[in-house]
């Protein structure tokens, strides 16, 4: 870092500087020059960061060495050589330019079959901004980014401050972090998926399209798989000796565990739990143990009681031997502390052997010292690169169009069990909502209004009956209440318009 120079600046120079700045901000044609300044600044940043990084990695080496990572003499240590140090994984976000991704893509595309150095590409692109810009995106965003940089004095002051801090040896990451989060403005283009001609695919087409897409690395994948299958015997042994196994790594581990199950667990009692299943509950897991494995037909007040019952049952009968396979123990529904607590206590029973997999990158945070000690984990890295087909199929991905089939069938099912009057009430609301479907600021139907309409249609005779009816709808999640700005209660059906019209059609056909 260069020491700062102090020099006298004449009034005229200052005035010139200010004028130039003004022009830079107001006139677009000044942009290139300003960008160069920005670039210099950012280069400086990079340098500082590099220095610090090397220092940090050095320190980290110490620690890693202490943990014995670089023991190259030991068997099977090939995996250690490359295992990236934590510093690379857990960094702060740096300032990103909005069109970086497009550039990267074009860079990747331009050199087919060859690897591209990312950082170098980015840097080069930054320098020759005159020429090959991404075709359309460049229009708006760069200027935005730049304005943020040159903003005004506070930023400069801040930068100077951080520079001095850096000289003292304190990390600049904090500053970088706040830099990245300073403006709430989002520097991305405003285009949406509506521009696509095929904006949404539904789940079925997605499956169909992907079914005939085979990976180009079948041989390597098979090799990985065989590598993992060699471990099966060891897994059996270690689970028998009281360890629990946890599998991690990129790729679906479901097939591997299924293979393990079919090959090794033949003839043993075992329970398979799909942790990724969106409505799995701890209760259902415990129930399947007590009801189906232990054959006990009673109910329990709470999971702790049930757990105690299981513990006693296993104590009584020492020949009981149960394998518990949990795909994604970090699943949405099992993540909670209480659930993990019960599961960990379950795994301490000598007759229960647990094998589980995790995928979420923060999954290990579920367990504190006590819990992970109860689990008695042995970690196994099984990277399979298999697609998470089953695991993500439940997820309502934002790119997949909701076909609405489920919502529709639930609507009809519930309504079928209601009185004709109730059905009429609901239809009234649905029709009104459909009439207003083009109105984006449609708040819903107000209660008073609704009551009036229902009375007119001879559906209810008092305020109270309508309220009772609405409670019924609400319990089945058919409608939702919303308080308007004026404090009036509004009612809406939380279903999209297409489904609603489908519903009305089927209703009409039925009557």
């Amino acid at each position: 870092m260069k020491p700062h120079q102090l020099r006298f600046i004449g009034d005229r120079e200052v005035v010139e500087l200010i004028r130039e700045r003004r022009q830079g901000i107001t006139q677009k044609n000044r942009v290139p020059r300003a960008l160069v300044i920005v670039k210099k600044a950012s280069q400086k940043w990079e340098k500082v960061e590099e220095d610090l990084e090397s220092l940090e990695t050095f320190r980290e080496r110490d620690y890693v060495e202490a943990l014995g990572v670089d023991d190259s003499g030991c068997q099977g240590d090939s995996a250690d050589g490359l295992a990236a140090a934590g510093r690379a994984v857990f960094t702060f976000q740096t300032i990103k330019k909005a069109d970086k991704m497009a550039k990267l893509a074009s860079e990747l595309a331009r050199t087919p079959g060859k690897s591209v150095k990312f950082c170098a590409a980015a840097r080069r692109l930054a320098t020759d901004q005159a020429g090959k810009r991404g075709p359309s995106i460049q229009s708006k965003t760069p200027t935005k980014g730049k304005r943020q940089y040159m903003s005004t004095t506070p930023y400069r002051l801040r930068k100077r401050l951080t520079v001095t801090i850096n000289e003292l040896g304190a990390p600049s990451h904090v500053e970088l972090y706040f830099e990245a989060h300073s403006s709430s403005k989002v520097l991305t283009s405003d285009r949406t998926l509506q521009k696509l001609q095929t904006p949404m695919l539904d789940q079925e087409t997605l499956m169909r399209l992907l079914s005939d897409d085979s990976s180009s690395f079948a041989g390597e994948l098979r090799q990985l798989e065989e590598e993992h299958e060699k471990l099966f015997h060891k897994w059996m042994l270690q689970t028998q000796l009281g360890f629990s196994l946890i599998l991690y790594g990129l790729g679906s581990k479901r097939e591997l565990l299924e293979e393990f199950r079919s090959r090794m667990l033949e003839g043993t009692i075992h329970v398979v739990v799909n942790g990724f299943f969106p409505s799995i509950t701890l209760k259902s897991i415990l129930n399947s143990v007590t009801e189906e494995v232990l054959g006990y037909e009673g109910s329990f007040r709470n999971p702790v009681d049930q757990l105690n019952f299981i513990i006693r049952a296993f104590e009584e009968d020492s020949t009981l031997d149960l394998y518990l396979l949990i795909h994604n123990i970090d699943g949405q529904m099992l993540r909670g502390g209480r659930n993990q607590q019960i599961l960990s206590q379950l795994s301490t029973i000598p007759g229960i052997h647990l094998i589980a997999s995790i995928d979420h990158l923060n999954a290990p945070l579920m367990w504190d010292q006590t819990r992970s000690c109860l689990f008695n984990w042995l970690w196994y890295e099984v990277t399979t690169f298999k697609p998470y087909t089953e695991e993500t199929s439940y997820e309502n991905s934002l790119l997949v169009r909701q076909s609405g089939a489920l919502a529709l069938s639930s609507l009809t099912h519930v309504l079928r069990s209601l009185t004709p009057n109730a059905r009429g009430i609901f239809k009234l609301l649905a029709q009104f909502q459909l009439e207003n479907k083009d109105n984006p600021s449609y708040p819903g139907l107000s209660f008073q209004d609704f009551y009036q309409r229902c009375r007119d249609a001879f559906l209810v005779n008092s305020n109270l009956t309508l309220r009772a009816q609405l409670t019924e709808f609400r319990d089945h999640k058919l409608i939702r209440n919303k308080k308007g700005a004026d404090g009036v209660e509004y009612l809406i059906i939380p279903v999209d318009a297409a489904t609603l019209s489908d519903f009305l059609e089927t209703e009409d056909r039925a009557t």
Partner: protein
Amino acid sequence: MATCSVSKGCFVFKPKDSRKRKRPVTADLFIKGKADSENDRLRFSTYESLWQQMKAETERLQENLNEKIFDSLLSFIKKSHIQLHSKQNDWSYRMRCCEIPTAAVVLGVNVPDHEMTFQSLSDLLKQSLTPHVVCLQGKECTTVKQVLQKVLTNVMGGTVNDKEEDEEDIHHSVHFSQRKMHCSMASLSGWYNATAQKSTSDSPSKKTKTPSLGQEQSPPIVIIFKDLESFLPKVLQDFITISSNYIQQLPLVLVFGIATSPITIHRMLPHAVSSLLCIELFQSLSSTEHLTSVIDKLVLTTKFPFKLNGKVLQVLISIFLYHDFSVRNFVKGFQLSLLEHFYSQPLSCLCSTPDEANARVQNLTHDDCELIRQVPSFMGYVEKQDSEKQIELLTNDQYLKDDVQKLLLDLHIYHKNYFPVLKCLHVTTSSLPKYPLGKQIRELYITCLERNIWETEEYSSAFQLLGMMAKDELVCLLQKCRDMLKSSKQPKALIGALQELEEFLTRFQKLDDIVPVVEVKEDEGHKRSPSKSLQGKTDLYQLQKTLMERKTSRRSKKLSRFEVLRMEVLEFLDKLVRQYLSPPETQPLHEVVYFSAAGTIRRHLNAAPRTALQTALSNPYYYLQNEVLRSEGGTITNTAPDICIVYKLHLECGRLINLYDWLQAFVTVVNAAEGKDPDKMRNGQVDEVLHARFIRAVSELEFLGFVKPTKQKTDHVARLTWGGF
């Protein structure tokens, strides 16, 4: 039966003939998939017996270490309610009587170990003092009602079991705990008084059985709060306030398990509540001391033939020091190493006591002999022999067996000498300033395991420091050394060393008797001469010269007898170290007893799942060894799996990612890789398959937790990680 369904997530598989649900014999698992079974069976049984011994040893150790604190706890609990019977009308008694006697046990941050401590404490209490012991955990008690419920079911339910032991089966207590009962302190005290009366009425019969119980008129009710920090303060406060009202009828004693510091009590409880407690503080042994004794009993001993090499020990100790301070986890790591050793090293069947090993060597098959010949350290040993013996060793099985027997015995003797000498060295160096060879014996041991200790800088600096020691210090150290050597069952080789040491000590003793006279004389002679020579010399040059002379003269000065002796002692120590502390790699057949796969152990115990995930994403070549994927650091080829490309692209974005742009970038890359026109989707036209692949990759990233949907802007996702590589 398939294990995927849209309606349930739990699938139970039960073999059809559920009668035959025998445990698979674990030993079979050891064997399966491998050829010779006899060897494997032997190895497994050796593992089992060794592990059982080690486990018993650690448990015994734990008991011994806890003995002191438990004793004081017991006596505290015993005397806490003695006044209840003695002097009812005493004023001080009345003052105290509304205070609940409380023992605050500071246990340290190694929470996983506490479980065992409390288990043995409650067992001990139940055996010797009172049947009414309740253990509470913070996570289970979120309301006062739950606390009371737990206390009541444990205290009252426990005795129900006691009384009708065999007639009623365990289901009874299930119903008991499930029955909605009115849980209050009042009902507890009512019950307690009833049982107390009953027990006094039929005490004659009881007295004959357990006299210790009979003497105590009313056994106290001990409530153990295992982890005080994780209790809700409100719950704790309420519970204490309630129970303080019943303290006159109920002999309650509370035990707080504290992981941090005693201040937490006052942080959790306001003065009004904490004044209801009569707290006595107990400090348990620190876990590092515990570890030291575990290492002493498991590692630094010849009792168990199995040994860890330096790296493995380093890994285990680092996990202990950097992560959890948990002795239990250390022992677990030790167990895993033991298992791995016996599982992966076919020659480990020879890893047993010398007598057993001798018999086993004779039973080795020809294949086993071949295995021995391939062991690197043995090959080195063979090369050193003369050619005749070499041929014999490589061709004659019987000859080999005899030689192996001898070598194994040598290895055993090597260890027998190793540990006493190591302890001696530790004793002498552990009190040096700045601890050049480490404060703890484990540090010294690791250094000794890894290299020739006498070649290290630390060693020479330690000896320099020793060379400056005063006499009484040195004598003290030597005495300690002597005691050390005496106490250990000394092997033959060390008897000589011990005698030599004794001799040194007596010589030091003699030094005391004779030396004073001589030394005084010498001193006087010295003092006089310089003072004389300095007189009358004012010339600077002359002064410098004389000073130089004096310096050289002092250097060449005849050493005092003490110094000579000190030198001899140091030489003696150095000789011992060089002779006995050579690293195990120098011993032939060390592979049989030393476990060296430190990497495996570290990966199993201290894994880095996120690193693995991100390595796979950013550098797929690491896992898929396909030349197409080979690339330099920080880069990726455009033929990589979809998810890797999508991940790489998303790294270039800020907090929010525009899905459309992302898709566009993805399509560009993939099209280029497939040799299609790299120009992107014109007029928003995208190949359906590509679109589907993109969707899959993005939803996989979402599943892994890298992005999540957001409503901040339409068709955007939010990034959840910073940086990345």
